[in-house]
């Protein structure tokens, strides 16, 4: 985009700035901005970079705990995991780019979040992905699924980090706005963590990595607006990823960090050079002066405006110790990467840009970030839905057919067609991941180095519940993550969140956002599960249709001895089956109600956080003592789906008895919370049950493992072969269809 002359209202609007926001800009600098300066403000004040609609609400989230080293506000969150080690992790969205160009959009989403983690000095050890697609039969959806899967795979596989988990679900309201959230997890020495805060006056600012091109200009601005029908015309705003360059950048950065040359470091992500330079200066109360003539460019004739707003990938900005320049340059040259000194820190807190000897921008640096508009947008709470009594839901089909339909449904069927495209085994530390078992465990489990410690990782959210009741749904999202980590034996430590919502200018969406955040905050407090990093993605809407509220929760937990982790697979015939937690047959907002009855109504299952904690702590103790032979949390699809997945994972069937107090389908498919299904050696089961009862935890012996059939009392009986066939076939059949 080239331009000269006056700043017109049309030009301001084209930069995504509202008239009152432009007035604020004028008041701040006391004159009309240059074209370059307008671009800088547009980049810094868009929703994606400024969090202007969400900021006042995010402040209410709990972010502290004794083990939290760094909460939100840096490139990623940092927690202490003992032995002098820190775990550094974050989740981030790449929703809009992935809809426009799924392969590159998803690939650069992975690349961006990996950079956030290794910028802080961590070596990435795992990634996860939370994906939400539209209706499977939507004409664009196979193209989007195939592109996102290959994009995530191509980046992670080449970079060399295992993609170990996540969640993939479908809903027609994502038809015009899919979600691609990537989470990266890295490990560093806790005394060798690097931050973005610049220090020292006159220190060199160094540009590292790939060259700057014209790709991704205004990507963050694009990501801050709802889609209209012209979404495909926005393809030029999507960046192109180069995982090979990023792998070199990782190795060069970690090598350079060991030399002590790095004072501050920031990756060039959204809003590129502008955002990274302003953040480093603002955090250190210093100014930044850049001379763009030194910026390595991919093509000639790039303007200051283009260089400042490019979102070319695989680039870093560093403040270096002045006597270390030569040493740093030698490391980057060895790895074949660009290295250029493009500016210096200055005392006066301004952001000064020179190009071809001319000052192109001269702006107050603190205000660029801190004085971004903050909105307390009007909101309307979601009306509370009445609970749905199980007796009011008639079973629409026989229970064995219901089970087969659900296990072959879009949300619950195997995602192996996607996850097989991810290298989940590289680094040789994946204990539980998509290639080790299918159906997969509640959380992924990786070993730390040579052990014995392990990290459990999860990323999920039940958007049905969030939509039906944002507050309960927000609580449930956190409880689900906490429970998933617990079920593999880990102690849950901290959360990264990715808050995907619709258009915040719609008061109903704002009501969903506020409600979910209240629930998330309450659950995090009750479970000692602080939020240490995250991302807000608003304007997920297309042609007026907002997505369901989808606050993705990424959880990290620690096992002191990874060999004590639990898996969900039934291990042998003759084991006793134990059900922990209370079963009321809650069908409101369930997958049974939605997928088999065609009804989306009723309050979602309530989450009692004290009960969650009591049940989870008890289960974790049993796992730690090796008292259980298999463990699985119950979530979508309830007890029947939970047991079916345990049976498929182990290749061994089971028989359970049903109570007479509930309709059979409510018992089998109800989604009551705080429940776990487990197996134990038969001679130990009664003692476990008594111990649970003594601690006030409902526990029933409901059956026995064995045979190649799943039998539910006298009401249903399904062979494992038939279950496996349905479970395995959904995605391969969908993706094999030729007609678009």
């Amino acid at each position: 985009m080239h331009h000269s002359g006056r700043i017109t209202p049309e030009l301001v609007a084209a930069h995504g700035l509202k008239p009152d926001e432009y007035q604020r800009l004028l008041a701040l600098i006391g004159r009309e901005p240059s074209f370059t300066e307008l671009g800088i403000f547009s980049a810094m004040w868009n929703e994606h970079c400024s969090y202007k609609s969400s900021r006042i609400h995010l402040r209410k989230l709990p972010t502290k705990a004794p083990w939290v080293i760094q909460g939100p506000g840096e490139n990623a969150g940092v927690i202490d995991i003992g032995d002098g080690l820190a775990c550094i992790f974050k989740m981030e969205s790449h929703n809009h780019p992935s809809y426009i160009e799924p392969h590159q959009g998803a690939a650069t989403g992975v690349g961006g979040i990996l950079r956030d983690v290794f910028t802080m000095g961590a070596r990435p050890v795992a990634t996860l992905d939370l994906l939400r697609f539209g209706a499977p039969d939507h004409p664009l959806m196979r193209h989007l699924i195939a592109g996102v899967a290959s994009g995530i795979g191509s980046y992670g596989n080449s970079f060399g980090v295992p993609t170990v988990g996540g969640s993939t679900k479908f809903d027609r309201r994502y038809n015009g706005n899919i979600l691609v959230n990537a989470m990266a997890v890295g490990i560093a020495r806790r005394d060798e963590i690097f931050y973005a805060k610049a220090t020292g006056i006159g220190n060199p600012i160094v540009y590292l990595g790939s060259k700057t091109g014209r790709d991704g200009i205004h990507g963050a601005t694009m990501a801050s607006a709802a889609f209209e029908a012209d979404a495909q015309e926005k393809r030029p705003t999507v960046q192109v990823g180069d995982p090979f360059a990023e792998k070199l950048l990782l190795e060069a950065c970690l090598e350079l960090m060991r030399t002590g040359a790095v004072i501050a470091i920031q990756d060039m992500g959204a809003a590129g050079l502008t955002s990274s330079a302003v953040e480093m200066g603002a955090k250190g109360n210093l100014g930044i002066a850049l001379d763009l003539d030194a910026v390595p460019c991919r093509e000639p004739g790039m303007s200051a405006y283009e260089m400042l707003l490019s979102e070319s990938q695989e680039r870093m900005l560093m403040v270096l110790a002045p006597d270390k320049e030569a040493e740093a340059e030698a490391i980057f040259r060895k790895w074949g990467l660009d290295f250029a000194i493009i500016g210096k820190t200055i005392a006066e807190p301004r952001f000064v840009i020179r190009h071809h000897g001319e000052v192109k921008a001269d702006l107050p640096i603190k205000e660029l970030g801190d004085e971004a508009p903050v909105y307390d947008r009007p909101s309307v709470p979601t009306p509370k839905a009445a609970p749905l009594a199980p007796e009011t839901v008639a079973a629409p089909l026989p229970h064995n057919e219901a089970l087969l339909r659900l296990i072959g449904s879009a949300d619950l069927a195997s995602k192996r067609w996607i996850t097989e495209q991810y290298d989940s085994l590289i680094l040789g530390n994946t204990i539980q991941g998509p290639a080790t078992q299918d159906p997969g465990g509640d959380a992924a489990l990786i070993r730390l180095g040579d052990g014995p410690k392990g990290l459990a990782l999860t990323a999920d959210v039940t958007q049905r519940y969030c939509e039906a009741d944002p507050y309960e749904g927000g609580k449930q999202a956190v409880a689900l993550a906490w429970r998933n980590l617990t079920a593999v034996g880990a102690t849950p430590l901290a959360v990264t969140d990715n808050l995907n919502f619709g258009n915040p200018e719609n008061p109903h969406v704002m009501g969903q956002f506020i409600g979910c955040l209240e629930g998330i905050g309450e659950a995090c407090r009750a479970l000692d599960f602080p939020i240490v990093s995250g991302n807000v993605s608003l304007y997920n809407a297309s042609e007026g249709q907002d997505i369901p509220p989808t606050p993705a929760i990424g959880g990290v937990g620690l096992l002191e001895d990874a060999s004590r982790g639990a898996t969900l697979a039934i291990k042998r015939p003759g084991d006793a089956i134990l059900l922990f937690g209370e079963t009321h047959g809650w069908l409101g907002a369930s997958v049974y109600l939605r997928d088999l009855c065609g009804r989306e109504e009723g309050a979602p299952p309530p989450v009692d956080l004290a009960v969650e904690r009591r049940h989870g702590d008890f289960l974790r103790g049993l796992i730690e003592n090796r008292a259980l032979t298999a463990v699985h949390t119950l979530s979508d699809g309830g007890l029947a789906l939970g047991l079916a997945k345990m049976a498929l994972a182990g290749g061994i069937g089971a028989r359970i008895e049903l109570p007479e107090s509930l309709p059979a389908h409510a018992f089998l498919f109800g989604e009551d919370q705080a429940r776990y299904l487990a197996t134990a050696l038969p001679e130990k089961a009664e003692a476990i049950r008594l111990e649970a009862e003594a601690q006030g935890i409902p526990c029933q012996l409901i059956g026995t493992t064995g045979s190649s059939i799943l039998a539910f009392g006298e009401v249903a009986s399904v062979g494992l072969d038939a279950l496996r066939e349905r479970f395995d076939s959904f995605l391969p059949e969908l993706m094999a269809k030729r007609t678009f």
Partner: protein
Amino acid sequence: MNAAVILFPGSNREKDVCRALEHASGKAPRLIWHGEDTLPPGTDLVVLPGGFSYGDYLRCGAMAAHSPIMRAVAEHAARGGLVLGICNGFQILVESGLLPGILMRNADLRFICRMQHLSVERADTPFTAQYKAGQVIKVAIAHGEGNYVTDDHTLARLEGDGRIAFRYCDARGQIGGAANPNGSLNDIAGIYSDKFNVLGLMPHPENLIEPIIGGTDGLPLFQSLSQYG
């Protein structure tokens, strides 16, 4: 056993194979930058690790085959020295002419990562002495271009000379059908050079060396090497 693992720009399984070698032999291998032109004196085994050398932006392995160190690797092989190429390393070996054939894109055009059974075709080589001939082992695969192709004449020679090292199979040792993950001719997962001192294979035995991480079926390959000679 003195092992040297070559590090190309874009290699990413070098740590995995170093760990396997050290686990089997008690001795850490040397990491050698691809820009070197000599191997450390006394090198017995050269390993070309998995990864995406030069991003695999040209044909996989084509750029790395021209790295300075590859001349020394070829001389080492010509002297009868041991060379092991895993995944991208196998691709580099065929691109540099140390092994025949080529690795095309997987038949279904998608990258595939899964646990995979292999049959060990013979147990009288420096790489497989700790296995039994015909043994079925479970290892990992993770590749997008593992579809082994060669001309009929070369294939007949490989088969006739017993130079197939591993074949894809199912858990019972049956070859063919869904047990072949990538469309490779004759279910070939790995081949030897004519002197049996160079092995290239697509699977990753280095990722199955401990019970907690999927099993130990990959370990005998590294134990065989560490006990050889």
